[in-house]
């Protein structure tokens, strides 16, 4: 190359041709550049949609997100009452928090400028401090790209055609791989624990399952639920209704996971080996328990762990109460209850079967011999249909019907069975009817979506060929000359909502229909039978609408008597509430008796 490289000197000068061109400079701040529709700026949180699960705070590796209580957020079932607050002295704008938000309430916006001389101003509660940013939401919690897994691992079940042939269990249960996968979906927020009547440690045991430690999971479950296998199969699982994942997807299958864990320990000895609860020294207090239903069993189990001398009196020949007699075996096999009761007996619970209190032993005797009494008598009597002809031969309550079937008796169902009601019990009756070979129609006053029964049960019933007739109010049972059921008359109803309340079914004139049938099963509710109580005690016991009044400790107006289960005015009528009653009564009895010393 020569010293005077003419080309190399002249060519760069050619760049002068750019002169006079309009510059591409953005005159910020006078002129603003368009921020893209996916920009990750400051956060915005829709305070109403947020449920305070704290998943954003957990995923944040910079510990930038705190969960704080806000004055305007009350919290309640399915809402922790806390909301995220972001520290922009930590945030790296990665938007992982947005992608893990189960409700999609947390998003990022096009706002990104914050300039100040005060370093303490970088704390922002999205949604509260920047409500105007709602319009500028850009990086959204996309359902498709979310890091949450919204689809449940499907449960394998028997084919509907197979099901109606026998009382074999319909749900086949998760296998290990499925259970791990399902447990992995849980975000461990713990919102569910509040909805559970007994406040089981749900996130903990699901985490243990996810980590492959089934034994630990079982141990955690037995901490405050002694009938987990029953719950694993027939719980009303209010926990799943408030699951954080359920907001935009299918709730974590908490019940099935519990079922999976309990099935891994398939006999009482194994349960004992795994759970190995701490048993306190006997403290010589005696507790008498009336009724070996879920409430009575639970109280018995936890009281004996605490060193009490517990005796349970049960009128039937088998333990379990309504769980044993009221739930068909295709949902809850006999072994499930027996296994758990065996375990409890091993832990020191004494159960006297075939002992009806008030007949075989007087209540007064139990009352006098014990330091505390727990009443878990349940609701034994069913309400009648209350219509013309309901005394006919062939009209029976679902409780009697299911009880007979479960204790091995035969019931002649004929060709056509009509079941009345919309709860789980009436669905059970319908499905049992199908298994006994009858055609089944089910009448319900309201719409199918109003049915209190579990959706899985309703679907299962339909799959098995139960014919649901919604908005149908029975008006008359038609008898033949011998007084036997011949048919049932019902009117169609329309749903009318008044004053914003739940819509009420109103009969449509002239829509009477008659169905021929051989048997009618009514499942429209039950009531308690307190005839076992001596008069002076019954008088002192405060009741409300046929149910015993208790305080938080499940203590009745007579301080020595505690009560729980379906017979108590405390929440819903289901197994888990009964277990909760038994558990909290234990704590109450413990508190009362230990205070004495």
């Amino acid at each position, binding site marked *: 190359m020569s010293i005077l490289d003419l080309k190399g000197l002249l060519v760069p000068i050619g760049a002068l041709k750019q002169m006079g061109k309009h*510059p*591409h*400079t*953005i*005159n*910020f*701040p006078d002129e*603003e*550049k368009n921020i893209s529709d996916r920009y990750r700026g*400051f956060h915005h949180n829709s305070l109403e949609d947020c449920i305070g699960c704290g998943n954003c705070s957990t995923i944040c*590796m*910079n*510990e*930038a997100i705190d969960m704080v*209580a806000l*004055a305007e*957020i*009350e*919290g309640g079932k399915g809402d922790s*009452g806390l909301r995220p607050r972001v*520290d*922009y*002295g*930590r*945030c*790296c*704008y990665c938007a992982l928090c947005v992608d893990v938000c189960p409700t999609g309430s947390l998003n990022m916006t096009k706002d*990104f*400028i*914050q*300039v*100040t*001389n*005060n*370093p*303490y101003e*970088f704390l922002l509660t999205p949604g509260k401090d920047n409500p105007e940013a709602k319009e500028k939401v850009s990086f959204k919690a996309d359902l498709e790209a979310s890091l949450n897994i919204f689809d449940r691992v499907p449960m394998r079940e028997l084919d509907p055609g197979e099901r109606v042939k026998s009382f074999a269990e319909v749900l086949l249960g998760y296998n290990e791989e499925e259970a791990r996968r399902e447990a992995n979906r849980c975000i461990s927020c713990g919102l569910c624990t509040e909805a559970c009547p007994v406040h089981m440690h749900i996130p903990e045991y699901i985490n243990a399952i996810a980590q492959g430690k089934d034994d630990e999971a079982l141990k955690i479950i037995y901490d405050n639920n002694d009938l987990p296998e029953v719950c694993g199969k027939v719980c009303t699982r209010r926990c799943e209704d408030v699951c954080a994942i359920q907001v935009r997807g299918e709730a974590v299958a908490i019940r099935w996971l519990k079922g999976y864990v309990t099935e891994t320990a398939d006999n009482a000895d194994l349960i004992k080996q795994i759970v190995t609860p701490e048993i306190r020294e006997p403290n010589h207090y005696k507790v008498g328990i009336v009724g070996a239903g879920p409430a009575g069993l639970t109280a018995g189990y936890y009281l004996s762990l605490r060193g009490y001398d517990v005796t349970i009196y049960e009128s039937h020949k088998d333990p379990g109460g309504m769980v044993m007699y009221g739930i068909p075996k295709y949902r809850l096999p006999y072994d499930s209850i027996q296994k758990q009761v065996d375990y409890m007996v091993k832990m020191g619970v004494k159960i006297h079967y075939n002992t009806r209190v008030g007949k075989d032993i007087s209540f007064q005797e139990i009352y006098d011999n014990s330091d505390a009494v727990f009443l878990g008598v349940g609701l034994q009597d069913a309400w009648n249909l209350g219509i013309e002809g309901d005394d006919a031969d062939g009209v029976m309550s679902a409780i009697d019907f299911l009880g007979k079937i479960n204790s091995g008796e035969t019931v002649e169902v004929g060709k056509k069975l009509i079941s009345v009601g919309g709860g789980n019990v009436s669905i059970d009756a319908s499905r049992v009817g199908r298994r006994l070979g009858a055609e089944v129609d089910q009448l319900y006053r309201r719409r199918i979506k109003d049915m209190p029964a579990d959706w899985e049960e309703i679907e299962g019933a339909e799959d098995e060929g139960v014919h649901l007739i919604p908005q149908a109010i029975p008006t008359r049972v038609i008898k033949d000359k011998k007084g036997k059921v011949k048919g049932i008359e019902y009117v169609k109803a329309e749903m009318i909502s008044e004053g914003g309340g739940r819509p009420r079914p109103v009969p449509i004139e002239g829509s009477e229909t008659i169905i021929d049938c051989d048997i009618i099963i009514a499942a429209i509710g039950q009531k308690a039978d307190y005839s076992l109580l001596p008069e002076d005690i019954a008088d002192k016991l405060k009741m409300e609408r046929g149910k015993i009044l208790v305080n938080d400790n499940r203590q009745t107006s007579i301080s020595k008597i505690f009560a729980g289960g379906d017979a108590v005015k405390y929440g819903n009528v289901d197994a888990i509430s009964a277990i909760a009653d038994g558990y909290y009564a234990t704590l109450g009895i413990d508190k009362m008796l230990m205070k004495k010393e």
Partner: protein
Amino acid sequence: MSEKNTIGIPTVEEIKQAQIDFSPRCTAAGRVNDKETQKMVDYILNFARKHSLFVLAYGTGCGAIEIPATMTSRYDAERFGIRGAATPRQADILMITGYLSTKTLKRVIRVYEQMQDPKYVIAFGSCTINGGMYFDSYNTIKALDRYLPVDVYIAGCMPRPESVIRGFVKLQELIQKGNAGNGECYRENLDWYRENQQKVIKNWDFPENYNW
């Protein structure tokens, strides 16, 4: 919200007090004089200062990657009289563009102390405010104002050119009001700063006197 939940949670006042204890804040440089004539002079001086900001070309962390974008043709920060300076003696602004490792902190303190008054510090991004994503790192400092007085903080990780420009504009406003430039304050609180600095910088081999 129920009372049960508030047990053990500090109140707003307690938090405020903790913040005040945490760092003495050098805000107003106090160059505003009572005399009318002096006010006029200050106004002119501040006006001149704010329109020629020489930035020391010392990018200490990842935030420096947006400085070229800010300085070059698309965002063109020279519109504001901002341009680079090669040495600390000529520079007005020290940019702390993100995290500062302890090794760099030592150099930065030397650089800051070599700069002539009035001098300004701009802190970029999360890392300078509360440690950012390196909050649990053993080698980066977390709160810059414990070690150097800071005039303007810019949020972001890292701040976009728009944020950077906004930060400079904010600094210009502060300069005009006479509320920026904490060199004097730093000198007054030198003992406090030194104590913090020496806690992090183990081998303290700085010249004895400050004005070097």
